[in-house]
């Protein structure tokens, strides 16, 4: 974390080039390795960034590729079902209606939504706590078991959930958990652990050792140090990991498909799929369901875009 703020600081001197003397010297020395510190490096950006025609063209082209389908989804979901077959698909309805949304909501959407919430929260909270503990143990501990855990969980990154679905199914049957929300939660926790531990341990490692040392001198136990010192200090990473895990689980499809069967246990993606099978003729309703299932994440995106973006690239930006 300390290193990221250095990078941010490294970008700032360019913004205040007109301040000479000791004041101007303050932020620079800590930022970049020698060579930069002495002279006046600023007035960078404008000159460096020349127009990038290829990138620009691609940028606008891709915007169209992204926006046209989304636009079409939204306007179609607002059409009366009878109008869908007769009107121009690219024009919004003259008499927009929420009837499609009403139909979706009447079809137990709220229940599926709650199921998704339960599974997501039920996965994220234990997964993050357990991963944080492991990350703390890996950074602070020593000995054979810690080394084994570290290597083992790192190896776990390479195991794809899809390829283990058959034994997971067998395991869930044997545990008498088939067709329950817990059946979705347990494997989801397990498969979110490796990446969470990797990201969190990188951040726990950044906590200055002096702080650990002073906690120790105060007589705080390692357990207390973990939750009262390291956890608050690594909160940005915890949030990142929670969001990444949450999105994976929220959008997950294979586990619910294989491990549940009753209608009242459907989570949103699965409900969406069966809804589509059931109402395939009523396209506005199907698309309303698509919109409704995306809405919670969209709200989240509007509120906490930065956390969401960093959450998505968790651990991969290395």
């Amino acid at each position, binding site marked *: 974390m300390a290193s990221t703020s250095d990078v941010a600081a490294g970008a700032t001197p360019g913004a205040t080039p007109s301040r000479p003397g000791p004041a101007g010297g303050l932020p620079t020395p800590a930022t970049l390795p020698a060579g930069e510190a002495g002279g006046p490096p600023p007035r960078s950006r404008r000159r460096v960034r020349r127009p990038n025609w290829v990138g620009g063209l691609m*940028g606008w082209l891709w915007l169209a590729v*992204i926006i046209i389908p989304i636009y079409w989804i939204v306007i179609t979901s607002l059409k009366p079902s009878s109008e869908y077959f007769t009107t121009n*698909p690219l024009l919004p309805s003259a008499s927009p209606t929420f009837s499609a949304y009403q139909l979706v909501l009447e079809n137990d959407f709220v229940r599926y939504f709650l199921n998704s919430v339960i599974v997501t929260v039920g996965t994220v909270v234990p997964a993050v706590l357990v991963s944080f503990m*492991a990350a703390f143990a890996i950074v602070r501990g020593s000995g054979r078991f810690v080394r084994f855990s570290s290597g083992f969980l790192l190896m*776990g990154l390479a195991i794809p959930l899809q*390829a283990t679905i058959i034994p997971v199914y067998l395991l869930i049957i044997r545990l008498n958990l088939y067709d329950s929300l817990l059946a979705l939660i347990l494997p989801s926790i397990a498969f979110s*652990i490796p990446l969470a531990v990797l990201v969190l341990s990188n951040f726990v490692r950044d906590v200055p050792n002096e702080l650990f040392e002073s906690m120790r001198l105060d007589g705080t136990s390692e357990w207390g140090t973990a939750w009262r010192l390291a956890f608050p200090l690594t909160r940005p990473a915890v949030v990142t990991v929670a969001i990444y895990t949450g999105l994976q689980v929220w959008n997950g499809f294979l586990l619910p498909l294989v491990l549940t069967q009753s209608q009242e246990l459907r989570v949103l*993606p699965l409900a969406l799929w069966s809804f589509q099978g059931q109402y395939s003729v009523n396209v506005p309703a*199907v698309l309303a369901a698509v919109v409704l299932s995306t809405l919670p994440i969209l709200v989240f995106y509007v509120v906490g875009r930065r956390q969401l973006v960093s959450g998505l*690239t968790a651990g991969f930006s290395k």
Partner: protein
Amino acid sequence: MTTTTPTTTGSTGAARRAPAPGASEHRSVKTGSVAWMAIPAVAFFVLFGAVPLIGVGVLSFTQWDGIGAIRWLGGGNWASVMTDPVMYKALGLTFGIMIFSWAVQTPVSLLLGVFTAGTQKYRAVLAVLYFLPLLMSAAAISIAFKALLDPNFGLAASLGIPVLVQNWLGDPTLVLFVIIFVLSWMYVPFHSLLYQGGVQQIPRSMYEAASIDGAGTVRQFFSITLPQLKYTVITSSTLMVVGSMTAFDLIFVLTAGGPGDASRVLALDMYLRGFRANQMGPASVIAVLIVLIGLGLALFLRRLGGKDANSSQMEGL
């Protein structure tokens, strides 16, 4: 020790670097009393990760219909799957989709990443919009595109461009293009985020030096940006390649493997054999193949990246 508190702004670069050697000193003193805190995570992953991984290997030598008893079979499943043309077709399709979607997504994500890393305001706005597909589940995206591509009432029918009015999901060749397109639609935003992060970590001084030496934009892109993004390219490619080995949700909802088995990729082949045809043994063989091929590709790409891939960049938060 108190003199090196990291918050003091006046500390010089040398002083800032001081804690590092001290840290390793302290580390050797600490006790092993925290090791137990790793137990819950390890236990979870043993039960639902490692055991299933071994289990899938074991199950590939058994006969099981998903409900009844599991019987030992020996190498029968392997022999039958390895001579099954359906598997080879699935394997070919998986590689085809993998290679083509890589070839589409990488340049697009790279360009978009470089583009959105720029400092202009409007680019930040565009980046917000690019991100939208990432909010949707694969199921939602597939369902939307299924309706959108409908040859009679979909989007293309209205635009009056005959080329676009095709039976996109009903033609065994076209369906592959559709899958590659929808996969790209879904995943390019993620990969361009990776590239954007990578570009932002390239030291500005390199570009300054290059432009002083008279290097143009194109030259700078190929001589600085691209080489500096080497590890990002490898990370992104690994995720794409391994991801397309396991791509299931999107293709399952979009085509269910059809028409016929024109889009029956390995992950789908595994699911259909196991949970539709109730042949868990052969399905487990496919699962083992997926793991092995995925692992092989990941290791191969890692080799391409060289050994010091970890030391290259920091967290891009």
